[in-house]
C-alpha cells in the first residue's frame, strides 16, 4: 500500500489570512473569559492590533506569487494589495464602532471578532482560485454580516434588515452552489484555471459548454447579488438602513470589494473564452446599476439611504474596471477604485455616526442643516467625502472615476463609459445637496454630540487620504500597477 502523502501546503502564502482567523478565534476566547463587560473597547483595540499585525505579516510577501492547497488558494500581488485594502477597511470600521456601540448600548465583545472574520472572508475571496474556496469566502463574509446586521437587536429595523438579508442571501448562496455543481458537471473541475483550460478547448454547441454557461450564469447572479448589481440590489437600501451604521459602512465597501475581486478572477481565469456571452450581460447589468443606483439616490431624503443607493451606483463604476480586467488598466482601476471608495464612503458613514445621538437617527438631510456653523471641521470633512463620491477634483474620487472610465473606454466599452459620465452628472446632484444643507442653511434641532477620539481619527484619516490620493496619486498608481501585472498575464 502506498504511503499516505499529504499534499504540500505552504502556509506562508496565506499568512495574513491565517493571522486574521487565528487572532479572531483567540480574541473570541479572550473576550469571553478575560475581558469584563463594560470594558469591551479593549477587545476592539486587540482586534485592530490583529489586523495591523496581519498587514505587517503580508509585507515580506510582496512580489511573491504562488499557489498552495493543491492550487485552490493563490497569492499574488493583486491578492496581497487587496488584502491590505480589506485590512484597512476592517481597521477603519472597527475604529468607528468603538464609540458607536456603547453609545447605542449594543456593545458586545464578539462584534470585533465578527468583523475580523468578515475580513478573513474578503481576503479568502481575493486569494481563492477555486470555486469551492470562493464559496467558502462568500459565506464566511455573508454569515458574519447576517449577524452583524442584526446586531442592533432589539431595534426592529435591525432585525428586519437581518431577516431580509438572510433570506435573500441564502437564496443567492443557493444559486452559487447550484452553479458550482453545474460547472463541475460540465468541466469536471472546480479549479478556475482548469475550467478555463477546459472551456478553451471546446466549441460552442458542445453540451458541456452549455452547461458551463448555465452554471456560470448562476454563479454570476450570486456575485451580482453580493456586489449589489441591479436588479439584485434591492436588499441594499433596507439592509443598510436597518443595520448599525458602522456595519452598513463596512458592508458597503467590504462585500463589494470581496465579491468583485473574486469575480475578476472567475471571469478572467475560468471564463475568458466565453466573454462574448458574459460581457454583454454584465455590461447591461452595470449600466442598469449605475442608472438605478443614482436615480434612486436622488429620491432619498434620508442620507443613510442615499448612501446606500450611492453604493449601488458605485458598484457600477467598480464594475467598469472589473469587466475590462483582461487589459492591464482594468484590475488597476478596480483596486484603485475600491481603495478610494472605501476611504470616502467610510468617512461619510463616520460623519453620519458622529451626528447620531443615543438611539436616535440623525440621517435626514435636515439634520445636516447648518453643520458648517456648528462643527466646521466635520462639515468640511463631509464636503470632502461628498465631492470625492461625486468625483470632483482634486479629491481622490475624481482620479478613481477617471481611471475607471478611461479603463472602460480603452477596454472597448466606450458607451458604458458614457453612461458612467451621464450618471455621474445625476450623482453630483444628491451629493451636492448634502453640501448645500451643511453650508447654506441655518442649523436647527439639537447640536450633535461631541466628536470622540475614535471617530475623529477615522474621519481625519479618511479625509486626509481622500485629499492626498487626489493630489499625489502617483505612489498609489505605482502600487496598483504592480499589483495588476500578475493578473494581466
Amino acid at each position, binding site marked *: 500500500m502506498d504511503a499516505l502523502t499529504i499534499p504540500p501546503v505552504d502556509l506562508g502564502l496565506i499568512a495574513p489570512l491565517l493571522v486574521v482567523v487565528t487572532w479572531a478565534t483567540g480574541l473570541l476566547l479572550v473576550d469571553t473569559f478575560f475581558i469584563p463587560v463594560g470594558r469591551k473597547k479593549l477587545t476592539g483595540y486587540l482586534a485592530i492590533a490583529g489586523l495591523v499585525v496581519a498587514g505587517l505579516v503580508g509585507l515580506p510577501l510582496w512580489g511573491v506569487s504562488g499557489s498552495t492547497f493543491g492550487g485552490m488558494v493563490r497569492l499574488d500581488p493583486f491578492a496581497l494589495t487587496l488584502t491590505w485594502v480589506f485590512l484597512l477597511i476592517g481597521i477603519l470600521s472597527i475604529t468607528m464602532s468603538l464609540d458607536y456601540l456603547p453609545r447605542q448600548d449594543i456593545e458586545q465583545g464578539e462584534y470585533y471578532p465578527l468583523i475580523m472574520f468578515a475580513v478573513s472572508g474578503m481576503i479568502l475571496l481575493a486569494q481563492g482560485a477555486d470555486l469551492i474556496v470562493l464559496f467558502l469566502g462568500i459565506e464566511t463574509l455573508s454569515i458574519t454580516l447576517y449577524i452583524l446586521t442584526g446586531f442592533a437587536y432589539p431595534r426592529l429595523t435591525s432585525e428586519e434588515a437581518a431577516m431580509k438579508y438572510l433570506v435573500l442571501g441564502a437564496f443567492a448562496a443557493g444559486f452559487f452552489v447550484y452553479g458550482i455543481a453545474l460547472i463541475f458537471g460540465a468541466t469536471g473541475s472546480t479549479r478556475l484555471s482548469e475550467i478555463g483550460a477546459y472551456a478553451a478547448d471546446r466549441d460552442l454547441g458542445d453540451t458541456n459548454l452549455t452547461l458551463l454557461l448555465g452554471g456560470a450564469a448562476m454563479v454570476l447572479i450570486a456575485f451580482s447579488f453580493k456586489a449589489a448589481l441591479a436588479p439584485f440590489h434591492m436588499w441594499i437600501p433596507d439592509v443598510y438602513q436597518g443595520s448599525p451604521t458602522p456595519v452598513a459602512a463596512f458592508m458597503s465597501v467590504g462585500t463589494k470589494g470581496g465579491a468583485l475581486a473574486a469575480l475578476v478572477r472567475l471571469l478572467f481565469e475560468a471564463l475568458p473564452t466565453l466573454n462574448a456571452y458574459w460581457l454583454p450581460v454584465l455590461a447591461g447589468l452595470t449600466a442598469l446599476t449605475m442608472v*438605478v443606483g443614482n436615480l434612486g439616490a436622488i429620491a432619498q431624503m434620508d442620507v443613510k439611504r442615499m448612501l446606500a443607493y450611492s453604493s449601488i451606483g458605485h458598484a457600477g463604476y467598480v464594475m467598469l474596471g472589473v469587466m475590462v480586467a483582461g487589459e492591464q488598466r482594468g484590475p488597476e482601476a478596480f483596486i484603485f477604485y475600491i481603495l478610494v471608495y472605501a476611504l470616502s464612503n467610510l468617512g461619510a458613514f463616520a460623519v453620519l455616526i458622529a451626528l447620531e445621538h443615543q438611539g436616535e437617527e440623525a440621517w435626514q438631510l435636515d439634520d445636516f442643516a447648518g453643520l458648517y456653523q456648528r462643527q466646521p471641521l466635520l462639515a468640511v470633512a463631509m464636503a470632502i467625502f461628498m465631492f470625492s463620491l461625486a468625483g470632483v477634483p482634486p479629491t481622490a474620487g475624481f482620479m478613481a472615476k477617471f481611471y475607471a472610465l478611461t479603463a472602460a473606454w480603452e477596454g472597448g466599452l466606450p458607451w458604458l463609459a458614457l453612461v458612467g459620465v451621464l450618471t455621474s452628472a445625476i450623482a453630483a446632484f444628491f451629493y451636492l445637496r448634502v453640501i448645500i444643507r451643511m453650508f447654506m*442653511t441655518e442649523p436647527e434641532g439639537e447640536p450633535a454630540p461631541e466628536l470622540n477620539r475614535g471617530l475623529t481619527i477615522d474621519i481625519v484619516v479618511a479625509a486626509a487620504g481622500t485629499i492626498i490620493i487626489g493630489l499625489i496619486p502617483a505612489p498609489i498608481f505605482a502600487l496598483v500597477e504592480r499589483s495588476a501585472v500578475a493578473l494581466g498575464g
Partner: protein
Amino acid sequence: MLYPIVFIALVASPLALIARLPARSLIAWGLAFIPLTLFGLTLTQAGPVLAGEQVVEEISWVPALGLNLTFTLDGLSLLFALIITGIGTLIVGYAGHYLGADSGLGRFLAYLMLFMGAMLGVVLAGNVLTMFVFWELTSVTSYLLIGYKHDYPDARRGALHSLLVTGGGGLALLVGLLLLGQMVGSYEFRDILAAGDQLRAHSLYPAAVILILLGCFTKSAQIPFHFWLPGAMQAPTPASAFLHSATMVKAGVYLMARLSPALGGTALWDVTLAVVGGATMTFAAIVAMRQFDLKAMLAYTTISMLGALTMQIGLGGKYGAEGVATNILAHALYKSALFMLAGVIDHECGTRDLRRLGGLRRYMPQTMVITALALLSFGGIPIMFGFVAKELMLEAALETDLGATLSILAVAAIAVTAIAYLITGWRLFSNTFLGQRSTAAMQQHVDDPTPGMLIGPGVPAILSLFIPLVLLAPVSTLIAAASAAIYGKPLEVKLALWHGVNPALLVSLSAIVIGVAMFRFAEQLANMRGWPIWLRGDMIFDRLIERTLTGATALTRTLQEGRLRRYILITALTMLIFVGVPFISFGLGAIRFDLDPQLQFYEILAAALIPIGVIATIKARTRLGAIIAVGVVGAMVALLFVLFSAPDLALTQLLIEVLSTVFLLLVFSVLPVRFESFSSAWVRQRDAIVAIAMGILMGGLVLATATNDSFAPLAPFFLENSLDKGKGANVVNVILVDFRGFDTLGEITVLFIALLGIYGLLRLRQGKDDVTPERVPTTATEPLSEPVNTQR
C-alpha cells in the same frame, strides 16, 4: 517659477487664518503681500513672454493617465495671471475692512487664497487635464466662499443652481477635453493647438466642440445658462468682486480664447460663439438696466460683458483677438472697482437697494468720485480705457469674416448694449449719489469709509483713466502678447484713443448721444412692464429638477417596494432569463430518460406523494394542515433516499424535517390565528407561473447534469478502494475518516469553535440577566406580515 506662483497661493492659504485675531484690517493688508508677491513673481517672468516666447515647466504627475503638471506662461496666461494676482491683492486688503467686524475673516481669506491658487492653476496649466482639475477646484472653493455668509432669502436655490450648472457643465467639459486628447493623442495644450487642422477634419470634432462649449458657457454664464450667476451673488461682496467679475466666470472665456486657434475657423465654432455671445450680451444688458439692487445690476452687466467677450472670440480676426484681450482687462478693472464700491455703499448705508439710496454726494464725496471714474469706463466714454476696448469690439464686428448679416447684427447689438450700459450707469449713479436722501435712511450716520477701504476700488478705477492716458505703450505690449495667443499668430498691436474718424467711432458716439438723451427716461424704462422676462432659465431648470425628482421617486417606489417577496420575484425572473437563455439557444444536449426497468410500485408511490404534498401545502386551509403536508414531502424525500440506499442522507433529512416541524410548532403560538392568503388571485397565478418555470429549469438542469457522462464518476473509486486501502467495509465511514480525513478534522475543529462561541453567549446572557431588553409585546391578533420598513 510657475510652480511657486500656483502653489504659494495654495500653500499659504492657512496662513490667512491669523486674520481671526483683532486688528483684522491691518493683518489683511499684511496678507495682501502674498498676492502682491505673486504679482511680482509673474512680472519677473513677463520678459520672454512679451517678446513672444513661452515659459514651460513640466512635472509628471500621473503618467499612467497622461496627467502631467505642465505649466505654461504665454501672453494670454500672463494677462490673466496679472489680473488675478493684482485684483487679488486689492480684494484681500479690502476684505479686511469689509469683514473687519467678523471673526471669520481668517477663514474667508484662507478660502480666497485657495481660490486664487486654483484660478492661477487654470490659466497657467499647460495640460488640459491639469487645467480641468484646477477648473473644478475653482468651483469647489468658490462654494466655500459663497457659503461663508448668505443674506439672500433664496440663497440656497441660487447656490444649488450655480453648483449644478457649473458641475454639470464641468462634466461635459471633461468629456470634451478627453475627446480632444483622444483625437490628438496628447493632453498638452501645445500639441492640441498645433493640431488644429487635424482636429477640424476629425469626425468627433462637432461632439468635442459642443461638449467643450457646454462647459465654457455654463461657467461663463452664457444664455441659456446665465441664470446661476445673479443667484450666486449672495457671496460676501469681496468674493463677488473677485469671483464674479474678474476671475472665475472668465475661466470659460479663457478656455474658449485659448482653444480658438485650434477649434475656431469653422461655422460651428464661430457662429455659435458669435450668436450666443451676442444674444447674451444684449439680453443681459437690457435686464441689468432694470434692476434695483446694486449687486444684481452689476451681476447682469457682468453676464453681458461675458457675452461680449464670447461674441468677439466668435467674430475672430485680428480685431476680435485684440478686442477680447483689451476688454478682459478693461472689464476686470472697472467691474471689480464697481463691485467693491457697491460693497462700500452697502457697508455704510446698510442697503444696496437703489430705491432706498440717494443724496450720498454730500456724505461720501470720495466714494462718488471713484464711482464716477469706474462708471465712465464702464459706459465707454472717451478717454477712459473702456472706450478703447469698446472701439476694438466694434472694429471686430465690422471686420468679421462671418458675413455681412452677422456683422450688421453684431454692430447693432453692441450699439444697443452700449446704450443700455449708459442708462444702467446713470441709474446707478443718480439713484445713489444725486437727489435727496430717503427719510428711511436718514437716521443712520453715513460717511466716507476709511481710506484703506477705498484703496481697493480706487486703484482699478484710476487705472481705467491712467492706462489710456499714460500707460498705453506697456499695456499695448501686454495686449499684443495676449491677443497673439488668441489669434494663433504674432500680432502688432498699438492701442490708441484716437484712430481718426472711422465707422466704429461714429457708432460709438451716436450710441453715447442716444444713451445720454435717454437719461431722462431712465426710471420709466426701469419700471416699464413687459420687458423681456422670457428665457427664465432658472424656471426651466427648476422644473427639470422637479421632473427628475418625481421620476426618480416613482421609479424607486416601483422597484423598491420594501417587501421581500417582490425582491425574490425579480431575482427569480432575472435568473430564469440568464440561465434559461443559453439552454434554450443551445439545447440541453442529449438528455436521456433512463427508466429503471425494475421500478417498484412503492418507489413510484413515494415519488408521486411529493408533488401531492406540495400541492396540499399550498391548498391547505389550516396552518396545522400545511405543516403536515410539508412534513409529508420531507418524509417522502427521506424515504426515496432510503430506497436508493443512502441511509445516512435519509437520516439527516429526517432530522432536519423533525427539527423544522418542531420549530414551526414552537412559533405557532405567536402567529396570528387567521390563516389566509393576503395576495390577490392574479398575484398567485403569476407566482405559480414563475415557480413552475423555475421548477422546469432546475429539474431540466438536474437531469442534464445527471445524464452527462463526459467524466468518470467518483463513486467507483471509493467502492473499489475502501476495503483495499481504507480497510473498512462501510464506504461512507471510510470516506469520512480516511479519504477525507482532513475535512473531518476541520469539521470537528469548527464544531469546537462553535461550541466555544455558544458557551460565550450563555455566559453573556447570565451576566446580562438583570438588564432584560425592552421589547414591545406582540399581540397575537396583529398580522406581522407587513414589513416594518415601508419607507421608499
